[in-house]
């Protein structure tokens, strides 16, 4: 058991090392130059000497290998560095963004998984019937909606035409709200992004649950359960759902990890100040340190979520336990 655990950890460390190294090289493989971001729009008016001085200030003149070494050093010492754009501490920036992102991503994930699992389970139970088919069709249609389109549509209906909800941001800018008023303001601003993300995430949870259920429903032990006279209710909750939940947990764990990456498109459409927006702004400006840090957070979240799912499997499914 211990040796297996160690092997697992080694495997995760290897994946981590590869992913973190890719985080360094991918931004630098993109064409484009962070100089414009560092120097502002007047970069073209600078003399070559001024440009060289600037590159030296941010360490971009060093050989790539030396930069790579520095990068690993900073990763291992938990030093995320400073943004080219604002000169601010990246850890601080991520700390500011993460709560906003988690509010809308985790909020929508919770709603979407409850709705998706219930609908998926129900659909599988009624497989082949009209309910199942119409649900399945609706879900596949929902899944094919482009996210920016859905977001803009909801803005157009609920903000522009009806004027019920705010169309942008996480709070009313410079409102001076405090306490309960502020909470209310934040929730109002979160509604449209959460609805958008929820609509987009329900089909995933639904399809995973439905498929997992269908597989279990066809197994021999379900027939056995039925033939020994167990009630439908007991079969559904005691046998089918229990056995179908493992893949759904994996799915949710991964979705939860993705929540840390924010949603670049949704946060852009709603001008929401989350991690996705930070990634968007840093990619368009080639702000390498911020890109690296945001991707690092994301990498770690995905790995931790995977590890969590790995560990949950034996608990959820006794067959997975190894002696």
């Amino acid at each position, binding site marked *: 058991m211990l040796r297996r655990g160690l092997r697992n950890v080694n495997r995760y460390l290897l994946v981590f090392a590869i992913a973190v190294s890719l985080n360094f090289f991918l931004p630098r493989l993109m*064409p484009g*130059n962070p100089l414009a*971001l560092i120097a*502002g729009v007047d970069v073209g008016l600078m003399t070559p000497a001024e*440009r060289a001085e600037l590159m030296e200030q941010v360490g971009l003149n060093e050989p790539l290998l030396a930069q790579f070494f520095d990068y690993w050093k900073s990763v291992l010492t938990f030093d995320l560095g400073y943004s080219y754009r604002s000169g601010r501490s990246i850890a601080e920036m991520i700390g500011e963004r993460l709560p906003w992102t988690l509010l809308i991503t985790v909020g929508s994930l919770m709603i979407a998984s409850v709705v998706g699992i219930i609908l998926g389970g129900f659909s599988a139970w009624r497989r082949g019937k009209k309910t199942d088919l119409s*649900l399945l069709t609706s879900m596949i249609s929902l899944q094919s909606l482009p996210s920016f389109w859905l977001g803009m549509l909801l803005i157009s209906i609920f903000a522009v035409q009806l004027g019920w909800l705010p169309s942008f941001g996480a709070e009313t800018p410079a409102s001076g709200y405090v306490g309960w008023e502020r909470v209310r303001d934040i929730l109002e601003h979160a509604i449209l992004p959460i609805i958008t993300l929820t609509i987009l995430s329900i089909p995933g949870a639904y399809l995973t649950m439905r498929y997992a259920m269908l597989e279990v429903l066809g197994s021999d032990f379900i027939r056995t359960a039925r033939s020994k006279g167990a009630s439908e209710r007991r079969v559904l909750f005691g046998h089918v759902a229990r056995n179908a939940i493992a893949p759904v947990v994996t799915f949710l764990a991964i979705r939860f990890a993705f929540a840390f990456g924010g949603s670049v498109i949704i946060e852009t459409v709603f001008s*929401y100040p989350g991690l996705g927006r930070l990634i968007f702004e840093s990619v368009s400006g080639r702000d390498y340190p911020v890109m690296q840090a945001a991707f690092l957070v994301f990498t770690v979240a995905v790995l931790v979520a995977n590890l969590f799912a790995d560990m949950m499997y034996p608990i959820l499914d006794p067959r997975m336990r190894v002696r």
Partner: protein
Amino acid sequence: MTKRLTLPILLLCLAMLAAACSDSDSDPTTTAGGDTATTQAEGDTATTAGGGDETTTTQAETSEPVSVRAAITGDEDTLNPYTYVSGFPGWNLLMMQYDSLMQLDAAGEPQPWLAESVSANDDLTEYTVSLVDGVKWHDGTDLTIADAEFTFNYFIESATGRFSRDLRGVDSVTVNEAGELVFALAAPNPAFDLVALADIPILPMHVWESIENPGEATFDISTNVGSGPFKMTAYEQDQFYRFEAHSDYFRGAPSVDELVVVIFADDAGALAAIRSGEVDVGFDRISPEQIELLDAQDPLDIAQGPEFTTQMINIDVSKRPFDDLAVRQAVQLAIDGQDIVDTVYLGSATVGSPGWVHPGKTVYNPAVVPMHDVAAANALLDDAGYADSDGDGIREFDGNPMAFEYITNSSDSLRLRIAELTAEMLAAIGIQATVVSVETATWEEAVWPGFDIANGRNYEMATWGWSAPIQANTIRIAELVNSDPGIGFLNLTGFANDEADAISAALQVEADPAVAAEMISELQVLIAEQVPFIMLAYPDGAYVYNSEVYADWEFIAGQGIVSKVSLLPPSARP
């Protein structure tokens, strides 16, 4: 159960479809008729457009504090002289908090501002400036000549940033016995008032003297002490800025008490917020197809006027076949600028002069006019021996088809349309331009690698455009065509021509404005003949604002409405 579940889902899908349709339907209905905005498009003098007639309504309500919420796209950092990001609207927002010695008036001409008077000696190598009295910093202390002297020397010494570049060629800045500021220049500079005095923010010495290396320092907004009509009281990255009126402002208290600038991630979001009434004015230009749509919606109005940004096609003239003048001239003849103005800009632009200079500028040479003649273009190519020998509709050069990659930046949908349209025009003369839309940083890196023309070029054809300052200061025409990277550092097409080199080098140091104007005239003829790049259009600036909240926007020719002048009472404007 079946019906209970499927119905809501079906209803949701139907509702979304219906809403999508009604939303897109509204475009064509409002584009018919209405000529409100476009009539002012061709103005070749400075114009004030938009809802000037509504000023009385806002003035009448001045008992209530006026709060204006403005939209920008993209963060501008802490908006001090070393942190603001973009030339527009970053610099404009910076200057809400600071004053310069001179300020542009509605015609775009610099007028004394913090300066009481500005005078220059005969050969334009020495400028003398006296200061107005009674100016206070946001923290209540007095602005003195010592602050001004400190500012210019600080920028000269720190040697990074736009304001240091403005002061290149300044030998010394001192205070004379009469208490006036004296700028000694190494060479005559007729545009010194425009490029330096009306551009550089005066800084408070007591705040900045302790900051030794501003290029490396990190700032919070406590540094943002200026003398301007607004002081920044809050900033949240990627969210908003909040400015409060500076009630002790030396030209009189601003007519707006609070300015909140909201930072959007994209312009679609900003427009939605303007339409929903969450934001009162857009500080980014709106696209031509939005003008009538927004103008038709009450209480939104449009401020529109000529601006000095340019749209052009860059071609690498150092490579075959564009090194051949006949090919460049044929390309220029094949392009119909009027069609671009009509089709892409829906009339809200001025056709590009092939000589670079905007027809609204005093130094514009009226002998240089746009020409469009497909037959003549084809004849030019035929005579130069570029035949289509295999009959595929594409001519050949040196055994290769005249087929080129034509890159444009994906974030600019107007440019993409221009690229598609001009590619069709080129097809009519047997040149195949394949439009490739790439992300902005990639496009920039191809056209202007490392923002240094010494790095060469990695493109064949590209859409391009220069921001307003390059056109506003007509002497900068030299930077576009000189083949010496020291002078022609904006020469992105690899153009080299002895005559252009000689005139542009002489232009940069010419003291006599009449002689300089003559040189600019000659350069326009030369550029139109030699075609270092192809000029397409000068798009108008159009801005949308909510006239119920604030309607007194001033359109500065070539600059637009984003300026402190817009937020001051008319009596306080230059």
